[in-house]
């Protein structure tokens, strides 16, 4: 649907009476719909922000927060619903119009040009001066005013690349103020800055609030939300759940709202293993700033889940185990023997990783399915010269067993659907007869049918004696599949829980968020 269509819908809706007068909100997003490739990611999502408030937008990974914000910023087009700014209907066409309407979004990855000075970044696209020459003096003078306002004490000629993350954030805020911002969206602003810098940021946010600017604040850090936020909109599965005053709720309430109704879940029925033997042991693993003192044991024949928010270090842990990332300290032992020497050694031993990003790191998209399946297993098909016929036969076998569609080994991997691509990745490693599989988000972007097939393959694998680490943001899937679930938070293992009947999504989420669950 085109935006112009949405505008007509707005005009029609305006005749209806509203229970809350829209003019008391500086921003109102009403019944926003959006789908990607037939999957509804936003279903009547709502967001209402008052002037001078900090409004928290809360939801699990994939609840639709980012999509909603991207619709607001003009990066995505909505398929239904209306947006009002200052009570007036607003049709976003381009990101530039959004800026002109007074909406600024500060993403985690900043929108700054690294090798230009601060003042040029602040006035990028709206430089002072005539048709030919830029009035540099005026830009410097005015940018200093804005920088003073937000307490950024560096020369305006400093290059963005030379600033710290917190300082870049301030430049973004200064840029927003220079745009006469009405609504400022901050996406996980404290994810990469220190506690002290967080204090300073909060002081600035309070300052902006007192100027009547509405703040939309996205963060997973519970304590922080209560400190900075006034009201909160909770989202789940692309839908609006509730709008609450943060004074009136507890962390436990919010967690329950995010998780929602009890999902019916059929736990996989596997026999409890009699005498657990460790097959993979991680001891004191540290990696750069991303992993801190990880201790974890994978038992033979189990599925160990790894839960946690995006950015908690789950994929980094997997890459550290297989030897892709260099370990700063700590050991990984496989069958009592230390796993060293890089990825090809791990693969030779039978420890393999199925990346969350199939397109970027799982498959060679421009090569055939057969080539992809054979790639890590060339040794099986000949020491010097490869036996092509046996290669093709083996690949056909896996295509048949895993029901890869289309059932043609010559098709280029890029022409397969997400589910079938995932099956090709799995086939690669089944063919290598690995014994430890690390699945990273194995069902992301995959339709329900293929999802069940992938669960089935995993069940079969452990039944045949393999062991699996399953990283997933989908708690329901972890609780369905896993024997135990480790929860990661900010590069550490927060806890390891037995997946028994008492385990709830609330428990998992509260460990992932680091909040105390009020039960």
């Amino acid at each position, binding site marked *: 649907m085109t935006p112009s269509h949405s505008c007509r819908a707005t005009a029609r809706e305006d005749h209806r009476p509203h229970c809350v007068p829209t003019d008391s909100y500086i921003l109102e997003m009403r019944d926003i719909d959006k789908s990607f490739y037939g999957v509804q990611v936003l279903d009547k999502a709502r967001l209402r922000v008052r002037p001078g408030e900090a409004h928290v937008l809360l939801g699990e990974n994939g609840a639709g927060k980012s999509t909603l914000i991207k619709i607001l910023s003009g990066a995505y087009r909505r398929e239904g619903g209306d947006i009002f700014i200052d009570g007036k209907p607003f049709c976003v066409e381009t990101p530039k119009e959004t800026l002109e309407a007074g909406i600024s979004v500060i993403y985690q990855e900043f929108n700054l040009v690294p090798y230009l000075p601060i003042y040029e970044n602040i006035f990028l696209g709206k430089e002072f001066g005539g048709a030919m020459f830029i009035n540099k003096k005026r830009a410097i003078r005015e940018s200093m005013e804005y920088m003073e306002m937000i307490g950024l004490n560096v020369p305006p000629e400093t290059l963005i690349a030379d600033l710290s993350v917190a300082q870049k954030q301030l430049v973004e805020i200064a840029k927003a103020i220079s745009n006469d911002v009405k609504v400022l969206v901050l996406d996980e602003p404290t994810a990469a800055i220190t506690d002290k810098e967080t204090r300073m940021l909060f002081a600035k946010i309070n300052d902006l609030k007192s100027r009547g600017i509405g703040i939309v604040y996205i963060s997973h850090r519970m304590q922080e939300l209560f400190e900075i936020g006034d009201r909160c909109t909770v989202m789940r599965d692309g839908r609006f759940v509730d709008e609450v005053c943060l004074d009136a709720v507890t962390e436990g309430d919010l967690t329950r709202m995010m998780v929602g109704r009890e999902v019916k879940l059929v736990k996989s029925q596997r026999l409890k293993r009699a005498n657990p033997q460790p097959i993979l042991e991680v001891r004191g693993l540290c990696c750069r700033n991303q992993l801190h003192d990880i201790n974890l044991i994978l038992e033979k024949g189990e599925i160990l889940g790894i839960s946690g928010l995006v950015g908690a270090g789950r994929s980094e842990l997997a890459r550290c185990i*297989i030897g*892709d990332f260099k370990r700063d300290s700590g050991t990984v032992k496989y069958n009592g023997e230390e796993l060293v020497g*890089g*990825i*090809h050694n791990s*693969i*030779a031993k039978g420890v393999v*990783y199925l*990346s969350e990003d199939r397109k*970027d*790191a*799982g*498959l*060679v*998209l*421009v*090569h*055939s*399915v*057969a*080539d992809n399946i*054979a*790639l*890590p297993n*060339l*040794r099986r098909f*000949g020491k*010097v*010269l*490869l036996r*092509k*016929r046996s*290669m*093709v036969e083996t*690949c056909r076998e896996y295509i048949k067993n895993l029901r890869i569609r289309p059932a043609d*080994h*010559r*098709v*280029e991997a890029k022409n397969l659907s997400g589910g079938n691509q995932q099956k090709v990745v799995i086939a*690669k490693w089944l063919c290598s007869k690995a014994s430890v599989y690390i699945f990273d988000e194995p069902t992301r972007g995959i339709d329900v049918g293929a999802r069940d097939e992938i669960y089935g393959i995993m069940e079969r694998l452990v039944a045949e004696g393999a062991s699996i680490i399953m990283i997933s943001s989908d708690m329901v899937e972890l609780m369905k599949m896993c024997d135990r679930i480790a929860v990661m938070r900010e590069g550490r293992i927060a806890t390891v829980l037995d997946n028994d009947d008492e385990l709830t999504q609330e428990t998992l989420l509260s460990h992932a968020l680091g909040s105390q669950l009020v039960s």
Partner: protein
Amino acid sequence: MSSTATNGRGGKSINWSALTLYIGAVAIIIVFTVLCRYFGRNFLTITNIQNIITQSSIIAVIAIGASLVILTGGIDLCVGSMVGFVGIFAGLLIKGGTPVWAACIASIAAGALAGLVNGALVSYGKVPAFIATLGTMQILRGLALLINLGKPISRFPAELGKIMNAKVVGSMPVSVIYVFAFYFIMIVVMSYTHFGRHIYAFGGNSNAAKLSGVRIKRIEMSAYVLSGIFAAFGGIMLLSRLSYADPNAGSGYEMNAIAATVIGGISLSGGRGKIGNTLVGALILGSLTCGLQILNVPTYYQTILTGLVIIGAVYVDKSRERKAE
């Protein structure tokens, strides 16, 4: 070879890209045959065909290395300078009394070493391939001029000429055998060995290759080493054919090698295309030159036409992709 499972292009039973290439090659031959006939000359004679292959042989050999590097997604600009350097280097050795065979081995070792430097800079040093090989291109040319103070070398023993010009079957020179032997070996290597498949995988998606256990740095580096070796061999071929070493020899060869590669349909983004088609690409360029010479077209026009063929070949190849989008 009936299965197309491993040709890097995969896909349907008809390989459109290769087909376009062969149609183009045949079209060029037909056009020249007709034109030559019109002007009362013959194009498709055994002598001409041999000439085309002999004249293209050096570029064809160098283009093997260029294709390998381009399959990894890189580029090797220093092969032309390598030809010039090897000529002077081997020439000085031979003049100094080194046996011809030993001088050849030393030259190839020098080529491998230069390739190793390129490869190490690109894969371990993360220097963009264009920059790294642009640097070594200048350095090698400089060395070629320096080691004999810019002077050419001539009057070599007749033994040297035999490397290229010895006749094996009838009037066919041995250089033709080199070309076909090298291409045969490389076609097998690229399609039937771990090394070849790893080159394709690395060029197609280095992340996926890495997670599949391909030692990507080694693989990338070895492509440059091989490129250096083939370029050095090309240098010896030129020295042997001319019996004359010029420090400025081979300039522009790197571009001809790249042209043969892209006309052959190897994608500059890496991972796709067949090395055998590079030979077709080199022969197309060779027959173009040869045909225009027979027609007495001035060299200026030849250069312009070569440029048009390069652009046209890739344009036609990409037109299917454009339609698909």
